[in-house]
C-alpha cells in the first residue's frame, strides 16, 4: 500500500513538472504579444516618443538628444526597432527613468513587493470570506442566511473599490480612529510586522471584498451542483455524516470553479490594486504607475505593463498547479 502511494506521488510530481514546462513554453508567445502591443502603443503616440520624453525631462542639449535617438534606435526601420525593443526587454532593459534617476526596472522592482503583499492578502481574504459565505449559503439554501449572503454579494460586486475604500476610511479612520488613513507604516515608527498589518487591513478589505462577492456566488452554485452528483449520494449511502460529506467530498470538488476564476482574474486583481494604492497611498506599483502617468513617464508606464503581465502569467501557472493538486484526474492541456 505504501509503495503504491509513493509511486502515485512521484508520478504526480512528474506531471506537475511537465505542466510547468508546458506553461513556461506557452508563456513565451504571450509575453511576445504583450511586448508587440506595447511597441504599437509607442508607435501610435502622437508626436515622436523622443520629443515627448525630452520635453518631459527638459532635455534640450543636442548631444543628449542625439544619444537618446541612438539609444532608442529611432533612425532604424520599424521592424528593426521592434526587434531591438524585444531584445532589450528580454534582457530586462526597460530604459532609464529620469524622474526616479534610476533604471526603470529598479524603480519597478522597489515598488513590486508592496503590491504583491496587497494582492496576496486581498486574494486570501477574498477566498476565505467568499468560500465560507458560499458554503454557508449552500448548506442553508433558501434560508435567511442564504439571502443575506446573496444581498451582501450583490452589494460588494457593484460597489466601486475606490469608493468602498474611501468609505472605509471615513468610518474606521476618521470617525472611529481605529485604523490609519493610508501609507504602509507609521512614519517614524519601527515599521514592524504588526504596524504593516495594521495599515494593510483597510486596503485589503477594499480590494478583496469585490472578489469575495464573486467567489461566494460561484461557490454557492458550485456546491449545490456538486451535492447532486452520484458520488456524494454514494458517500451519504455509506453512512457518512452530512458534515463529513460536505467537507470531505463536496467542498473539495466545488472549489475547482473558484480556482479557475481566480486564475482568470489575476490581471484584474493586479489592476485593481493600482486604484486602491492611490486611495490609500500604498507605496506599490500602482502609486508608481499613477505618478508616471501624471508625469507622462512612458518608459515606466510601459515597463509596468510588461512586468504586470509577467506577474499575471506566473500567478496563473501557480493557480494551474493548485488546480492539479485539487483534482488529480484532470490532465491539463
Amino acid at each position: 500500500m505504501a509503495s503504491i502511494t509513493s509511486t502515485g506521488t512521484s508520478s504526480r510530481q512528474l506531471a506537475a513538472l511537465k505542466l510547468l514546462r508546458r506553461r513556461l513554453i506557452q508563456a513565451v508567445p504571450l509575453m511576445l504579444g504583450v511586448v508587440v502591443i506595447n511597441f504599437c502603443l509607442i508607435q501610435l503616440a502622437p508626436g515622436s516618443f523622443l520629443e515627448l520624453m525630452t520635453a518631459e525631462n527638459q532635455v534640450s542639449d543636442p548631444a543628449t538628444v542625439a544619444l537618446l535617438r541612438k539609444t532608442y534606435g529611432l533612425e532604424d526601420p520599424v521592424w528593426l526597432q521592434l526587434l531591438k525593443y524585444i531584445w532589450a526587454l528580454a534582457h530586462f532593459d526597460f530604459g532609464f527613468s529620469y524622474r526616479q534617476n534610476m533604471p526603470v526596472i529598479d524603480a519597478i522592482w522597489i515598488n513590486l513587493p508592496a503590491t504583491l503583499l496587497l494582492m496576496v492578502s486581498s486574494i486570501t481574504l477574498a477566498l476565505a470570506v467568499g468560500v465560507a459565505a458560499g458554503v454557508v449559503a449552500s448548506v442553508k439554501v433558501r434560508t435567511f442566511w442564504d439571502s443575506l449572503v446573496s444581498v451582501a454579494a450583490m452589494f460588494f460586486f457593484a460597489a466601486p473599490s475606490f469608493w468602498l475604500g474611501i468609505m472605509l476610511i471615513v468610518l474606521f479612520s476618521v470617525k472611529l480612529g481605529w485604523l490609519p488613513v493610508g501609507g504602509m507604516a507609521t512614519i517614524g515608527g519601527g515599521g514592524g510586522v504588526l504596524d504593516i498589518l495594521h495599515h494593510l487591513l483597510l486596503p485589503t478589505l477594499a480590494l478583496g471584498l469585490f472578489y469575495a462577492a464573486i467567489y461566494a456566488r460561484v461557490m454557492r452554485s458550485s456546491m449545490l451542483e456538486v451535492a447532486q452528483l452520484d458520488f456524494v449520494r454514494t458517500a451519504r449511502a455509506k453512512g457518512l455524516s452530512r458534515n463529513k460529506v460536505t467537507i470531505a467530498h463536496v467542498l473539495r470538488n466545488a472549489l475547482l470553479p473558484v480556482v479557475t476564476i481566480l486564475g482568470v482574474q489575476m490581471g484584474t486583481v493586479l489592476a485593481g490594486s493600482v486604484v486602491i494604492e492611490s486611495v490609500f497611498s500604498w507605496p506599490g506599483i500602482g502609486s508608481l504607475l499613477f505618478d508616471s502617468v501624471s508625469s507622462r513617464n512612458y518608459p515606466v508606464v510601459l515597463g509596468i505593463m510588461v512586468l504586470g503581465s509577467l506577474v499575471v502569467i506566473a500567478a496563473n501557472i501557480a493557480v494551474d498547479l493548485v488546480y492539479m493538486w485539487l483534482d488529480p484526474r484532470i490532465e491539463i492541456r
Partner: protein
Amino acid sequence: MARLEFPRLEFVGRFSRNRGALLGACLILVVALAALLAPLFFPADPLRIVGTPELWPGEDPAFPLGTDSLGRDILAMIVHGARATLLIGLCASAVATLIGVTVGAIAGYFGGWVDEVAMRAAELFQTIPNLIFVLTIVVILGSTLTNIVIAIGIVSWTSIARMTRAEFLALRDREFVQACRAMGMGNGRIIVGEILPNALPPVIVLSSLVVAGAILFESAVSFLGLGDPNLASWGRLVGDGRQLIRSSWYICAIPGVAIMLTVLCLNLIGDGLNDALNPKLRDR
C-alpha cells in the same frame, strides 16, 4: 433565415417574474430618464457655483443633496453625470461586443488554426492587467471620450468572444447550417445571416454585464483624474470630493452610491435575462 425555436412571450414572462430583475430594469429606466432629461431639470451648467460651499444634504431645501466644496449643486451634477456615465458604459460595451462577436464568430465557425490564433489573442488580452492597459492607452493617446470608450472596449471583449465562439461551435454543424451550405451559400452569409441571429441571445445577456463592468472602469479612470476633462462623470465627482472626507464625506459618498446602484441594477437585469434564457439554471 432559419430561426431556432425561441418562445418570446414565455421569455418576457419569466423575466418579469424575477422581482430583482424587474426592480433593476425600473431603476435603470429612472437613471436613463434622468440622463435624457437632465437639460430639462437643470438647464444651467451643472459645474456652475450656485450656493454656499459644503452644505450637507437636507440643510437647504434648494439643494436636496447638498453642495460641494465650491458650492455647486450635487444633485445637478449627479443628474448630468448620469449622461456621461451611461453614454460611456453603453458605447464601450458596444465596442466590446462588436470586437468580441467578430472574433468569436470567425473563431467558432472556421475552427482550426484561425480558432487557435483567436483564442491565444483572447488569452493575451486577459493577461495584460486590464485597468493598467486602459490607463496606458488613455495617457498615451489622450484623455478623450472616444479614446476612453475604445480603451475599455479593447479590454472587455474577451468574454464575449469566448461566449460567441462556444455558440458558433454548437451551431455550425446543425442541419439548418448544413442545408445552407448544400444550397451553396457563402461563409459570410451563413455566419451573419444564419448562425449569428441564433447565437445572439446569450451574447446580449453578457453585453449587459459588460456595460456594468465598463461603468466601473470609467469611474476608476475618472476617479484617478484621467477622464475626459469636459465630462463630469460620477467617478470624477468621487475623486473631486476626496480631499474633504474629514469634514464633508457626503460629497464622495453620493456619487459612489449612484455608481453602485446603477451597476447593481445592470447586474440584476443581466441575471434576470440569464435566468429567463436558461430556466434550468435558475435557483443555482
